[in-house]
């Protein structure tokens, strides 16, 4: 879990997010709509913090603990993570 991937695409992040929900919430993959609110799958505040932590570990990012509550769907969360990755890459490039 702690290995950093080469920068994934937004679609890959969405896929990661969906499979995370399948494992964490023990629900079927076909039940996950990418625009549906996380809460509709039963992702409560504690579970959402776990998902944020897992995303941090995977992507090497530092996120706020409410990141998944504030971006509460697969699409919104993936877009948010993508933006964080771009910001981080820009920061690194600018720092050199």
């Amino acid at each position: 879990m702690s290995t950093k991937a080469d920068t994934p695409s937004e679609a890959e992040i969405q896929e990661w997010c969906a499979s995370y929900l399948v494992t964490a919430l023990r629900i079927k993959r076909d039940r996950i709509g990418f625009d549906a609110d996380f809460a509709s799958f039963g992702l409560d505040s504690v579970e959402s913090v776990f998902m944020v932590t897992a995303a941090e570990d995977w992507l090497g990012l530092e996120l706020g603990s409410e990141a998944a509550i504030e971006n509460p769907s697969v699409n919104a969360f993936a877009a948010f993570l993508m933006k964080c990755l771009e910001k981080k890459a820009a920061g690194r490039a600018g720092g050199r």
Partner: protein
Amino acid sequence: MSETLFDRPFASMADLIASRARERPEAPAFAYVPERGDERLALTFAQVEARARAVAARLLEHAEPGDRALLLFPPGLDCVVAFFACLLSGIVAVPLMVPRRTAARDFSVAILADCTPRLLLTSAELVDSRPDLTDWFDRAGATWLVVDAQDDVSPAAGAEGWAPSRSDLALLQYTSGSTSTPKGVMVSHGNILANLEMIRRRMENPAGAVSVNWVPLYHDMGLMMGVMQPLYLGGLSVLLAPASFIRRPLNWLRAIHDYRAAVTSAPNFAFDLCVSRFQPDAMKGMDLSCWQLALNGAEPIHADTIDRFNQTFAPYGLNPGTMYPGYGLAEATLLATGSQRGTGAVRRMVSRDSLRAGRADPPRGEEDGQCLVSSGRAVPDSSVVIVDPDTQTPLPPLVVGEVRVHGAHVAQGYWHNAEVSAETFPLSGDGSSTERTLRTGDLGFVDDAGELFLTGRIKDLIIIRGMNHYPADIERTVQDSHEALRRDCGSAFAVTDDSQGEKLVIVQEVERTMRQSLDAEGLARVVREAVTKAHEIAVEAVVFIRPASLPKTTSGKIQRGLTRRLWTEGRLEVIGVG
């Protein structure tokens, strides 16, 4: 450091704060460990008193003793300083959870209306990070003040003169009551002082013991065990953010190791979380042999949890006797019973069949056996009696009844709610004593040695991760979520799963017209979303049943206990599950 710290009666919590500052001025009192980075803020006993005294003077410019002040803080030491300022000035503290940005409903409205605060205390950090709260502050109708634990104060600053007494209120604890009719438990300075001494003696906590705590300070366990018991012991309290624990549970153990902590407090789920997030890498170099007492309370305690936790962390020096089951509630300030230090959890195998009949007989075979964990014995100078819930007559050992608590730690009642107060806190004797009696609404039995075993609740209260939820609130959310769901025809209850604590199940009637076209999965999604957003808990199962098939009494009251039993026995008229 000696036991002389405890050998005199304190006039109030203000007296206790001043005494510790005088006795141990340079000793570290509170430290906050942020989730990332090393900038750890720490205050000595003298510093925390001086800063709180300066804030107290500011509070008294805007309010009078007896007025209420809401405490709305992110994790950190600002909250501790603000709380102490209230104790020093006689202003009644009302600790609250910070409303979420995305909350579908604002649960604090009813609390504001109930306690009519004069002041609202918060931190610069919260004001900066949550501009949306300014509206909320304005609506609260209270003067809001920013408290900063790092503000340097000149030693001369501060209010002198008036001081609170033991009978004055120290805080209102809003952990009881449904959201529509909140109940603020009135905790006096005397209640806190009494319970602090009871806890110290029952736990045999030595002077100067170091504590590590991540339970939120708006929770009675967080405030008593994370702030007040450490102050009483004159020992360092290390505070972590609740989210930091949830994200990285092993951070808690790391802090225990780093600070050589002896005492912690957390609900049962915390121990499960440490096991499920266990990683040998993150545990490298950790030595937990310093950890002497881990209070496990605030939700049902599971033997399996304790076994798994002890097994997982024994290689890191954890003593199996560290686990310390206890039982408490805000109505008794905090702790009502506790185990024997160092002996670990006391267990008892009882017959499931006999439990259903209200007795704790030995099991008649393996299938019939259920392992219960003792919550310990009554704290010193108090009593715990099992009574018949209807007649209030005491019951013999091994018979299940309502748990009744008596002592100087029993709170003064519910704020502005004489009717419910009289029911829950029946006056004993002539009413002249400072000791009161509390009907807890919890069910249990004691064994011959006086060990308390909890078996359930009279109230339909649902406790998940140490937080109380009222079924009526959840049922209303469910029925508001979709027109196909019949009003007042649903039941929310918790089922206990041996490994993972309590889980929420919702049984709900659907309208006749919707029966044929029911999309159970889609509707369940709507229900889940509404419940999770409004109450921050996940729903294990949403069960749709035939109209008019929900068990109710003849007077139309929902029979949640019976519904639960029918569900577990598979006897409901189910038309869809999602």
